[in-house]
């Protein structure tokens, strides 16, 4: 244990307006801490540079589900346990439910928050591929008001995002229009539980008359940040699904993916497995539509 609690100020203003005031009053000075599952690891390792921290834990305005007929809005302070026990998530966004079950362990899921996962911005983030293929929108908030951006525009670089110094990630908006989509999410980790992703692939697709009418493909660890695979999607969109298209899509992914070598895995493996995952999804689609 290399962290020293004496060197870090931690305050818990308790309400969202109070937190936003604090952030606005000293932009960039305060680091929000939600469930602490990332920051406390850095703290114990002696790597936590943030000297001022503001706690989001217990800020009830951030931990909510707002359900309407065409949208589910999830507060950024919602934990992954919350996600796993929400019936709308289970019914309408099964990929997110699945992703939530991958976060660490039960003890991590009760504390890790959706907002924290996104703001931490690891290219391996568990919730990101699902959110990307569900066309999520991110709602940001500050004393100046709220704004929404498509989630695919949230990450701007390795561990960089579109938030300004006084903004907080407020909520994630999910359109409830994927019920009839074919959906796929698979994570490849070092083991079955408590595994950081080596590569993960998510996809949602709508087929009409054997052709791909809508397609979203997103990956973890195939780019410096969680990203849609736009070129791979383009190779698939509008085309008839058949073995030759699957091969084309594989090659598009292999060309588009930019994974790295790191302590957990290597680029060649990540790319190839990413292509295999895509193929697995498309083959399942193909045999389903053939069966019809």
């Amino acid at each position: 244990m290399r962290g020293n609690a004496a060197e870090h100020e931690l305050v818990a203003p308790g309400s969202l307006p109070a937190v936003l005031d604090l952030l606005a009053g000293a932009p960039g000075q305060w680091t929000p801490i939600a469930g602490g599952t990332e920051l406390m690891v850095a703290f114990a390792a002696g790597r936590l540079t943030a000297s001022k921290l503001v706690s989001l834990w217990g800020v009830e305005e951030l931990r909510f589900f707002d359900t309407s007929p065409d949208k589910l809005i999830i507060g950024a302070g919602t934990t992954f346990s919350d996600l796993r026990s929400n019936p709308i998530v289970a019914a309408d966004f099964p990929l997110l439910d699945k992703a939530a079950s991958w976060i660490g362990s039960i003890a991590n899921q009760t504390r890790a928050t959706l907002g924290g996962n996104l703001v931490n911005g690891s290219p391996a983030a568990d919730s990101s591929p699902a959110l990307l293929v569900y066309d999520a929108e991110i709602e940001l908030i500050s004393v100046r008001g709220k704004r929404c951006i498509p989630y695919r525009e949230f990450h701007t670089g390795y561990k960089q995002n579109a938030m300004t110094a006084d903004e907080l990630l407020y909520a994630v908006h999910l359109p409830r229009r994927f019920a009839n989509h074919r959906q796929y999410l698979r994570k490849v980790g070092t083991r079955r539980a408590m595994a950081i992703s080596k590569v993960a692939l998510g996809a949602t697709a709508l087929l009409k008359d054997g052709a791909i009418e809508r397609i979203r493909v997103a990956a973890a660890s195939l780019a410096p940040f969680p990203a849609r695979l736009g070129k791979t999607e383009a190779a698939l969109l509008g085309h008839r699904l058949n073995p030759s298209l699957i091969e084309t899509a594989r090659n598009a992914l292999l060309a588009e993916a930019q994974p790295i070598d790191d302590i957990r895995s290597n680029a060649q493996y990540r790319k190839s497995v990413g292509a295999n995952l895509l193929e697995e999804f498309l083959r399942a689609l193909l045999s389903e539509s053939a069966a019809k």
Partner: protein
Amino acid sequence: MSAATPIQLNVNGANLTVTVQPMKRLLDVLREDLHLTGTKEGCGEGECGSCSVRMNGDLVNSCLVPVLQAASTNIETVEGLARDGILHPLQQAFLQCGGAQCGICTPGMLMAAKHLLAYNPHPTMAEIREGLAGNLCRCTGFMRIFESVLSAARSTTQETHAR
């Protein structure tokens, strides 16, 4: 730089106040300030689960909780399992089934098992595996631990699991 501040906690049913820095880990507060050394540190990264406690009924890794965030919560640690010297059914099951070898993972494992059974009194093997996946045991290979949890699930009643 950061001053000690009074923080109120309920630990195993007792209301306590500790005066500590807000960023101090709940794990360290339990072990150092409250002298409840049953909860262990194995990794400091939330990977091994030997620091697991329950906080307001949620299983958490106490090495990842700044004590300020535990303020006014109910904390349950391994020390709270036995009542008046009588072992909790889980503890009895672990004793009978060989669920503890070196014992260092045991407090966290018991809390995780308790948490599991509180929400799911009759878990399947798959559910037990998932419920304990955050608690690493290097000695047992988990088999006797699964046995212990199944045995505890089969034994007695509501009353004991609700604790």
